[in-house]
């Protein structure tokens, strides 16, 4: 028996030794590829094959045969497409005009993160990543590891992205929204230089219902309450004000002076008294807001199902007349007929203390739409390739294709897709976006382009959505861009901020739904708990980030429509 054990033991030891030896030798072979690809840095002088005289072509004819491998994130409409490269008008024409071939790697949005991580881990990187919506944090992480190219090196951005650079001079937040501490920039972002694309939450009221109760679109918090109240009495089976928790905040926090610098930094806005950042759920104004919303809930004026909000439900409820007032980002879930029944909020609501901010505002500058990797052998070409979309002709071509072929110019100066493109939409067989995908790559946003009117076809720039945006933009503070942080700062506050936000959202919903009582005792307990969770560290870090944004050229001010003419 003992001998059996001995030999068994010996065998086991041998196995362990074998495994560790094998393990030791299993070094990641992928690393070698990455390190050799790092050698591709932007050249100090423009390569001879690049046409620096005009926008197109990018690569001079009969010089180099250049192919870019681009990874692009796509949503559902594209997955039905049989031949991505040949079915989309834009792709074919653009390859001809730029003299640059593109090998497309399309990735469904659900598996995008996994695919990207796998590419990085295996060392098989594409040349560029488009529409990835990659956050500043991830960009900094992979940029510092050498996977993403720093566009500020050798003045690459200025030399090969003149259109983007010009926009950045006009709107400083274009760059400050993607500049890392230390000055590196790893991506081009969507430039939202139109009024319609800066307001990301709007409120609508059913015109027929307003007529039936004899009221107008509200302008104050009291009128808002009265309109909802009247709706409830007239239509007792209606669901009240329908919205998601996010859009409930976007559209009502402003009445209490909260969220005065836009939505890109969560619950951080400016303390007007000190000029520094504050975590606004700790303010007395937040308490007033919660009390106001819980009254709405208690009186049946706020939908009891706001936690379970979905776009599909919004479409259904507005269609069958169970919802007469709602707030959301856009009207695309409503049918054309229902959209026409809606009256829009023409100006931000004024609260009881006189505040009339609108939290649902966003910045002109965004990040993460076009990234060039270290594997790209022609970074100058790649950058010029994407930069074209920031010019007027380029943006028009990107969204609408060619006027006279896939688009027509309207009498009011705007553009629309041609009848052949929209024939399935008009006959009801397809949605607007579902038809547009055969011309352009703009669907699902986050594109490396600008939203400037009239070159952009997105929903926000049309109809009552646009009119409402004009009403709501008046007197808005310029929104802060999404701040960037160092690795150390992220490590220090990421967990804390997430924990505090989760706690705040929980308490908010429990109070609004009447599950907990909001009084002096529970409020001071709430504040104490947040302080215990080290919120001061978060505020300090955000202060530093705000200062960095100022140093990078961001200026405080107010939006006005003239900025975007």
């Amino acid at each position, binding site marked *: 028996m003992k001998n*059996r054990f001995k030999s068994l033991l010996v065998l086991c030891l041998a196995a362990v030794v074998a*495994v560790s030896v094998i393990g030791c030798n299993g070094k990641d072979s992928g690393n070698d590829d990455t390190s050799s690809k790092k050698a591709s840095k932007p050249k100090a002088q423009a390569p001879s094959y690049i046409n620096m005289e005009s926008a197109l072509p990018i690569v001079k004819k009969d010089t180099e045969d250049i192919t870019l491998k681009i990874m692009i994130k796509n949503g559902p409409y594209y997955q039905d497409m049989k031949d991505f490269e040949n079915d989309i008008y834009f792709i074919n024409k653009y390859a001809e005009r730029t003299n640059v071939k593109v090998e497309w790697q399309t990735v469904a949005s659900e598996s995008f993160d996994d695919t990207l991580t796998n590419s990085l*881990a295996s060392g098989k990187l594409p040349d560029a990543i488009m529409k990835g919506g990659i956050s500043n944090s991830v960009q900094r992480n992979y940029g510092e590891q050498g996977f993403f190219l720093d566009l500020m090196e050798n003045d690459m951005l200025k030399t090969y992205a003149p259109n983007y650079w010009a926009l950045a001079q006009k709107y400083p937040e274009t760059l400050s929204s993607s500049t890392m501490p230390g000055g590196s920039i790893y991506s081009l972002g969507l430039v939202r230089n139109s009024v319609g694309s800066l307001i990301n939450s709007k409120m609508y009221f059913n015109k027929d219902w307003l007529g039936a109760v004899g009221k107008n679109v509200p302008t104050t918090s009291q009128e808002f309450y009265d309109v909802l109240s009247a709706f409830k009495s007239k239509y007792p089976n209606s669901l009240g004000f329908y919205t998601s928790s996010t859009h409930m905040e976007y559209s009502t926090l402003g009445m209490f002076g909260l969220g005065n610098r836009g939505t890109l930094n969560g619950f951080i806005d400016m303390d007007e008294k000190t000029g520094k950042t504050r975590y606004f759920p700790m303010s007395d104004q937040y308490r007033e807001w919660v009390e106001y919303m819980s009254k709405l809930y208690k009186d049946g004026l706020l939908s009891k199902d706001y936690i379970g909000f979905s776009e599909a439900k919004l479409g259904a409820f507005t269609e069958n007349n169970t919802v007469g007032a709602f707030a959301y980002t856009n009207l695309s879930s409503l049918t054309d007929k229902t959209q026409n029944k809606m009256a829009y909020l023409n100006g931000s609501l004024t609260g009881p203390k006189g505040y009339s901010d609108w939290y649902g505002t966003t910045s002109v500058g965004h990040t993460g739409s076009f990234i060039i990797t270290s594997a790209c052998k022609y970074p100058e070409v790649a950058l010029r390739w994407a930069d074209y979309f920031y010019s007027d002709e380029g943006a028009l071509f990107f969204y609408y294709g060619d006027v006279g072929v896939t688009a027509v110019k309207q009498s009011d100066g705007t553009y629309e897709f041609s009848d052949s493109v929209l024939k399935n939409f008009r006959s009801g067989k397809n949605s607007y976006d579902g038809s547009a995908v055969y011309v352009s790559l703009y669907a699902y946003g986050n594109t490396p382009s600008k939203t400037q009117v009239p070159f952009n076809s997105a929903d926000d720039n049309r109809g009552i959505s646009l009119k409402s945006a004009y009403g709501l933009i008046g007197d808005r503070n310029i929104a802060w861009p999404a701040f960037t942080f160092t690795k150390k700062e992220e490590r220090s506050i990421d*967990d804390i901020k997430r924990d505090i936000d989760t706690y705040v959202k929980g308490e908010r919903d429990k109070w609004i739904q009447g599950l907990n009582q909001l009084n002096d005792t529970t409020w001071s307990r709430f504040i104490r708990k947040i302080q215990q969770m080290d919120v001061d560290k978060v505020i300090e870090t955000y202060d530093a980030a705000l200062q960095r944004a100022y140093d990078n050229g961001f200026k405080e001010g107010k939006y006005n429509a003239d900025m975007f003419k």
Partner: protein
Amino acid sequence: MQKVKSKRLASAIPCLKAWRKSIRKHWQLYLLLIPVLASFIIFNYIPMAGIQIAFKDFTLKDGIWGSEWIGFYHFERFFTGYKFMTILKNTLLLSVTHMIFTFPFPIIFALALNELRNARAKSMVQTITFAPHFISTVVIVGMMTAFLQPDTGIINIALTNLGVLDADTYVSRLPQFFRPLYIMSSIWTNMGWSSIIYISAISAIDPQLYEATEIDGAGRFKQVWHVTLPGIRPVIITLLILNFGSIMSVGFEKVYLMQTSINMDVSEVISTYVYERGITARQFDFATAVGLFNSIINLIMIVIVNKIAKKVSEVSLW
């Protein structure tokens, strides 16, 4: 020296000889064993080398072997998080109550099923009851939410009409219903499937034992108590020990799907916490550290319970 060596060799040789004989006799079985062993070594043992990233600052650029060591940083981050005690408590509470309530039902069900005389009824009941096991978690949580929805959910309507529930209560979101719903849906889903092993154990009991007790005048219930239950005791204890070994591994999917902003105090468990913390920047090192912590606790639990089981009964895993 010479003598000791030869003594060792001498004692080793008959052992090897016996082995070689066994291999020659049953070589087909050993051949069958090789792919299994290989897959275990390749997919279970070799990847263990990756555990080291729990102590490293893992970057894709440096890979598993090249990343820097940072000691217990990830563990500190996990343990000093403000919510750690709450999350640990939630995990253990959910896991233990889940086990206490879901463990007996398959056994009782198997015993009850055993009493059925009609073979067709028996197999029909079996098929119907283990069908839910194959329904995905997402669908189950979706059904639960739909049935409990005020105004439209059948269960909600039934309970409101009976006067047990207030109208407008979103049962599937409230903290006080989280654990009961989690456990009840688990029982519904898994009772049938888990009872299979008990049913087969029951069928293995010698029928003569039943006859013997009948002669002594035992009724049906006494028979179950004195023959059937002791008969499947080894199976029960083995499964109980194994259950304890997964006490820290509260499944991620169902909890995550059932979480709402208002029940986070009870629904946030280790797996969902790590999912959130690790998802944005793909922090594999942090997730590995927490996974290692879970596995160590599970291992300790299973060793302790096994020892107890050994002492109290003759049944144990090892």
